[in-house]
Structure formats: structure tokens, C-alpha cells
């Protein structure tokens, strides 16, 4: 793992207001290539809003986002952000339910393929070869999760178990060819053995050359995979550091448990 001096993702003074509500206030975050960064914080602390602004779903009210060689992606619509190399999953799964498992991953590949209407309608060799390659790559991405998804390639996404739907969301995000993967509560609803499996999956995906930022409430997972942890509260960055540093930071304990608990600690 090499860490270049320049961060892959550089967020400066990022703010998002909804009317009078300050959902994000002056967030500064650097993420270096190859890191697995965990974002923690109580519900409503702005974690998912941060992902939504990063991925272009909500336009930022202020601040800048620099990503890799792209100087400023703050104003880009979601599909352009994805084409720059940022992919994400959703906290409340948003799979393409009536499409098959394989088609879900293929849908992630649309922006990485080129064939136009006429070559497709005429079934020209170029379009056919591109489609075959896309399907082969999709199979390979299903294979990231061992035998969890591969045997179910032709089932509809809606028929999958909860954990498999989470895995499919990750495979679909990987299909867009990202350098940065944002995972929004990937372990939510998973049992302990599934969470353990997910942790090794996340590390394996990082080892494929990706950088990962994840939001998670499961502290066991955060402790296990994250090289660095950032704590959010009330739309602000409270602190960052190793899991141990952040876990014992008085402001973090106060945010989770209240003022008196923080004093007692």
C-alpha cells in the first residue's frame, strides 16, 4: 500500500443547509489512497448527508470537494461524480429489484461502456463484444463475494436475502469502476457471522486497489477494518484519529452518552 502525499479526496469547508437546518458545517476531510476510513456518529449527525453531498445527490451549500485529478467535483450531478470514480451504496438498499442479480451489476457498467443505439440495434460485432465483456466482468465482480452471489446470477434482486442484497449493492457499485467506494452502513441488519465475513470482504476490496470510506454503527466492524475513524455530531466533524483515540475522546462520549457520562469517563 502506497500513500501518496496528495490525498485522493480532499474536502474543504463543506456545508449543507436545508432551510435553517445546518446538516453539515465546514467539514474538512482528507482521504488518502488505500485507506479504509470509518465515519461514526449518532443518528442525525450528518453522516449520510455527507455521502449524499459527496456523491452529488445534494448540491453543497458551501465548500469544495477535490477528487484525484478532478479539481472540483462539488457541482457535478451524480452520474458525473460516479464517472470521476466515486461509487456508493445506500443505507436503505436501493437495488434494481425486478432486474436479475447479474443485470444489477451490468447496470453499474453502463457508464463504462460505449455502444450506441445503432450498433446495438444492428447487433454489430463491436457492440456484442462489449456486452460479452461487460457480462464477464459482472460475473467476476459477483465472484468477489465467493459463492454468495454467483449461483444466484439469474434470480431477481428482490428475491435475495438481506445480507446478499447488501453484497449485491457493493458489487454493483464496484461495476462503475470506482477508485473511492462509499459504504453507508454496510453491516446494518447483518448477523455477527455475516458481519465478520463482510469485514474480510471490505479488506479484500481495499486490496484490489480501492479506497473506502464507510459509515457504520457496528463498532466491532469499525475497529476491525478502519485505519482511521472520523466522528460526526450535529453536522460537524468532532474529531479524528485511530479507533482507540476517537472512542475515548470526551466529545465523542458526550455526543453518544450525554454530558455527565463524558465527565464521569
Amino acid at each position, binding site marked *: 500500500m502506497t500513500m501518496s502525499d496528495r490525498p485522493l479526496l480532499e474536502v474543504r469547508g463543506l456545508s449543507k443547509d436545508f432551510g435553517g437546518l445546518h446538516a453539515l458545517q465546514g467539514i474538512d476531510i482528507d482521504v488518502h489512497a488505500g485507506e479504509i476510513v470509518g465515519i461514526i456518529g449518532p443518528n442525525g449527525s450528518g453522516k449520510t448527508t455527507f455521502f449524499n453531498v459527496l456523491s452529488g445527490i445534494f448540491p453543497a451549500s458551501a465548500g469544495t470537494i477535490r477528487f484525484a485529478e478532478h479539481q472540483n467535483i462539488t457541482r457535478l450531478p451524480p452520474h458525473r461524480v460516479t464517472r470521476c470514480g466515486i461509487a456508493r451504496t445506500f443505507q436503505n438498499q436501493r437495488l434494481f429489484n425486478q432486474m436479475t442479480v447479474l443485470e444489477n451489476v451490468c*447496470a453499474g457498467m453502463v457508464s463504462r461502456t460505449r455502444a450506441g443505439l445503432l450498433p446495438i440495434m444492428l447487433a454489430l460485432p463491436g457492440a456484442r463484444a462489449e456486452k460479452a465483456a461487460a457480462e464477464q466482468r459482472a460475473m467476476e465482480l459477483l465472484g468477489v463475494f465467493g459463492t454468495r452471489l454467483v449461483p444466484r446470477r439469474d434470480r431477481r434482486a428482490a*428475491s435475495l436475502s438481506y445480507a446478499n442484497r447488501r453484497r449485491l449493492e457493493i458489487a454493483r457499485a464496484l461495476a462503475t469502476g470506482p477508485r473511492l467506494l462509499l459504504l453507508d452502513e454496510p453491516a446494518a441488519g447483518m448477523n455477527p457471522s455475516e458481519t465478520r465475513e463482510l469485514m474480510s470482504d471490505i479488506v479484500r476490496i481495499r486490496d484490489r486497489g480501492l479506497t473506502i470510506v464507510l459509515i457504520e454503527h457496528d463498532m466491532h466492524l469499525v475497529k476491525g477494518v478502519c485505519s482511521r475513524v472520523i466522528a460526526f455530531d450535529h453536522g460537524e466533524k468532532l474529531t479524528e484519529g485511530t479507533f482507540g483515540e476517537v472512542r475515548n475522546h470526551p466529545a465523542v462520549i458526550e455526543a453518544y452518552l450525554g454530558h455527565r457520562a463524558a465527565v464521569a469517563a
Partner: protein
Amino acid sequence: MPAKWQRFSVPAIVALALAIPAVVPNAYQMGVITRICLYALLALGLNIVVGFAGLLDLGYVAFFGIGSYVYAFLASPHFGLHWPFLLALSASVVTTAIFGVLIGAPTLRLRGDYLAIVTLGFGEITYILLINLDRPINITGGPSGIVSIDPPSFLGITLRDNWQYYYLILALMGAAVALSRRLRDSRIGWAWQAIREDELAAQVMGINTVAAKLQAFAIGASFAGAGGALLASWQRSVFPDNFLFTESVNILAMVILGGVGSIPGVILGAALIVALPEIFRDFALYRLLAFGLLLMILMIFRPEGLLSFKGPPEEADPLEQVTAERQ
């Protein structure tokens, strides 16, 4: 369907379709079957917009009308133009595709009911233009339409009988089936279906939803354009009343009845919606009543359509159960 069956089913269906004129006894029935194929072509086009991309279009008949009139303009004494059939047909297809984009563009931000209402409006505008554009300059011929349209002719053979039109329309319907399948299983089809399932997630997966929706509108409209040209050349005349709102509803009913998104389903839907009123012709007074009742019964017992792409509701995945037990 097992793969080895599928290999035989396509040639079998094609052979059956080609043999139909040999076994159908009279021109009236041949005419009904030909109309089924024409409406199947239209329904396949609407299926791209509604079934694949999930955009509810209630003004689809507008494209059918535009296609018909473009053909009528280019191949009739109305403007004194007599373009060859294939050229006039291509012009209808291209023109309707352009109108598909023009009408699609302002509706891109609309969803569901709102999109339906706006497209309904476009359908009505088209009808009103067709009926009123005979003054101050006579463009559409007004309520009396355009007559004496040229029949199709290739290599010196001019089509006259219903069975000849049947082969022509069947060929274009077959092409529509092939194009629908290729598009559905392509990167463009993946994008359409993703938009249908979850537009925001589709955007976040890097799909340019604006471009994909416009492509759906253009392709869907162009099928109707081909259908319109075929109608004009078969009927030898076009009237605004061929393109009433009820036609949009009929075509949509074909798509929904057979199963939204399913290609065989849409063809079956076209067959039923065209044939049933003919079968009930003896009870002309009660025809619409019986037809409506039949549709209601179907929607109660099979709301997903006769041959839906969703298939029957799925039981628990046996593979999932094995995994669950292991944990």
C-alpha cells in the same frame, strides 16, 4: 423455458406466422390478423417507454398519427408527392423519432402521474392540430383527412390484398421484436430498466438518465412512426379520428394486459385487444361492457399481466434457505 426448447420455438413460431394466410379462410379474418400485427408493433414501441424505461406515456397515439400523416404527405396526391414506399416509411420513422425527443425533452423532470398528464396533453394537441390544420393553408386536410394514398410497391409489385399487407406488417413487427430484445439486453436496456426501478440509484450508478430517457422516447416513437406509415398505406387514407385518445388507452391496455415489459406478453395483449371486440361483434351493444368486465377480472386475478416479466410471485429462494440453515 429450457434452452433446447427455445432453440426450436423461434423457427416454429416464424413458420406458423408465415403459414397463417394459407389457412385463414377470408379477407376479413386476414384483416383482423394483420391489424393484430400492426397493433403489436405499436404496443412494442410503447413497451419500450412504459415497460422498459417505466415512463407512463398516455399520448403515444400522437406518434402513430404523426407517422401516418408524414407518409400521407409524402405519398399521395395531397401535395403531389409520390415517394417510394421505403423512403416514405423511413421518413415517417425518422420524423416520429425526432418528435419523440421533442416531446420527451420537456417532460424529463416529470414522473409518474405528472408525466402521464403532460403526455396526455401532447396527444390531444396532436389530434387538435390534425383536425384544424386545413386553414389558413391546407396541410392536414382537416376532418376529411387525406385520401388516395399510394399503396406500397416494391420492384414493380404493388400490394393489394390483405395477405400481402400481412407479410409486410409481420416483417416490421418481427423487426420490432428483434430490436426490442437487443435493446433490452444491452447497456441501453440496462439503463432503462435501472431508471424504471430506481431513478436516483440509476443516476448514482453513473447512468445519464436524461440521455437514456430521450433514447426511450425516440425509439418508442419511431416504432409508432413505422406503424403509422403502414396504417396510411394499408388504409389508403388517414383521418384525425384514427388517432383519438382511446387509441392511446387501447395500446396501453395491450402492454398492461400482456405484462408490462414482456415482449411475448405485449404481442398477446395486442392479439386479445384487437380480436376480442371482433369476436363479440354479434353483441355489439354490450361489446364494450363485456370487454371492460373482462379487463377488470383479469386485473383482479392477474394484476401483473398475462405473461409478465415478473412471472408468478416467487417462493422463498431454495438457495437462500440452505444458506440460512448453515448459519
